[in-house]
């Protein structure tokens, strides 16, 4: 069974249609395997070869991969949620009720997005601390660390702007408490808060602003910085591997 499946796949990969889509035949030689990476728009920012050590789970626990994959899952679940959501008060709250009582698997969809968001904040923090303790921020990776700090801030802002969108008491007061702190900024504090909220209190304008930030501006910024982050990993010579990683085979 497995052999016939393999043969079928091999035959498929040898077809003209397959070649026209992937710009290559079956990836059986190192040359075609290289083409599979750098000849593919979605993979070309990966190096063609990676160090065996950097593949080991202990090297990075795949924390960067996990953060990125979570981001993709959040985009998918987020877009699905957008189909059911109106960024207006109090409609937004009624949409939450609809997700719970009307939409098929609406609760599950919202749970996935919420858990993904919490998990992403956790993993991005963990990723950063892990990179620090491995000394992976040292030359030539200095600038990629800085890009990473910005990605952490973007992750926090993404999570925070999303926190307001259900428009329940939890969301409203969490954002009120947070944005009140902006007023403590000297001289421009109240102006900055006014711009952030589109008013002096957390109201309908704030909801719309947070929504636009959450679904357009911050995800685009995240994509941009993630692109630079991955590209720099490759350009700066791959993940940091240490001689210590040889201890104990994993």
């Amino acid at each position, binding site marked *: 069974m497995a052999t016939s499946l393999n043969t079928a796949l091999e035959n498929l990969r040898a077809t003209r249609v397959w070649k026209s889509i992937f710009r290559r035949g079956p990836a059986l030689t190192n040359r075609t395997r290289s083409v599979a990476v750098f000849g593919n728009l979605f993979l070309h920012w990966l190096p063609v070869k990676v*160090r065996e050590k950097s593949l080991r789970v202990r090297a990075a626990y795949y924390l960067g991969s996990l953060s990125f994959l979570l981001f993709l899952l959040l985009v998918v679940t987020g877009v699905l949620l957008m189909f059911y959501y109106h960024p207006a008060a109090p409609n937004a709250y009624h949409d939450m009720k609809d997700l719970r009582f009307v939409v098929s698997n609406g609760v599950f969809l919202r749970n996935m997005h919420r858990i993904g968001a919490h998990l992403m904040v956790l993993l991005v923090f963990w990723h950063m601390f892990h990179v620090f303790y491995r000394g992976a921020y040292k030359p030539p990776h200095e600038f990629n660390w800085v890009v990473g700090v910005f990605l952490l801030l973007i992750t926090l802002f993404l999570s925070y702007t999303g926190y307001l969108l259900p428009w329940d*008491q939890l969301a409203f*007061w969490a954002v009120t408490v947070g944005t009140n702190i902006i007023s403590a900024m000297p001289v421009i504090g109240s102006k900055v808060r006014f711009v952030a909220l589109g008013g002096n209190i957390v109201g309908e304008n704030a909801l719309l602003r947070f929504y636009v930030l959450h679904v357009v501006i911050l995800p685009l910024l995240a994509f941009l910085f993630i692109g630079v982050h991955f590209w720099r990993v490759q350009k700066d010579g791959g993940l940091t591997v240490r001689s210590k990683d040889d201890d104990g085979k994993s």
Partner: protein
Amino acid sequence: MTEKAKIESGFSSDAKKEPRRIVFITRNTSAKVKDERGPQVMTYPHLLVREAIVLEVLIIAMIVIALFWDAPLEQLANPLLTPNPAKAPWYFLGLQELLHFFPPFVAGILIPTLVVIGLIVIPYFHVNVEGKPLWATNASKRFIIVVGITIALLILLAVVDAWTIIVPTALVAVLLVASYYSKATTGWMNTLRQKPLSWWLMTWFIATALCLTVVGTYFRGPGWSWVWPWGTHAG
């Protein structure tokens, strides 16, 4: 003209299959470049298949959690009904806990700004590229400076009663002092003795942030008073 000649010779030379980087290890060069090149494997399929497995494990884990844990939904937002306590999302509760001890400008603006700037400058500020232990050179002088700063910090924190910062700070300080006096050559104490200053600073930062966040999340009730997470209280 010499620049041009260099470039041309670079292009015309035969490229090796596995280029070897030749590095002079100087004091300012990371020691890791010595042995960073191990055997290599092709990204396709070795890395990609692992990424696919990571994605599958992640999706399964998320689905399992999503089936058993429901996203919270409280009453409709009401500006006239303030919950007590009103809490920010969990990752900002460390800051909200700071707000309990320091004026809003210090806790809400100054400290977060300094933390972000501190994180950004880490790779540029760091002069100890080889990661030499804190006690490797000038041990007694460094000990006096570090302990002096720690005690001054603890006194300052005691003045504002910020004991949720004092506890993790004191814990890390105890380990730091123990690592100075320790003569251990094996075990975890020896590991601590080998740590550079940057390790101690980051560990202190994480310990404090963790303590503040956990206390802010689980141990703060009405009026930001101390409550036990298993106790019943209105809120």
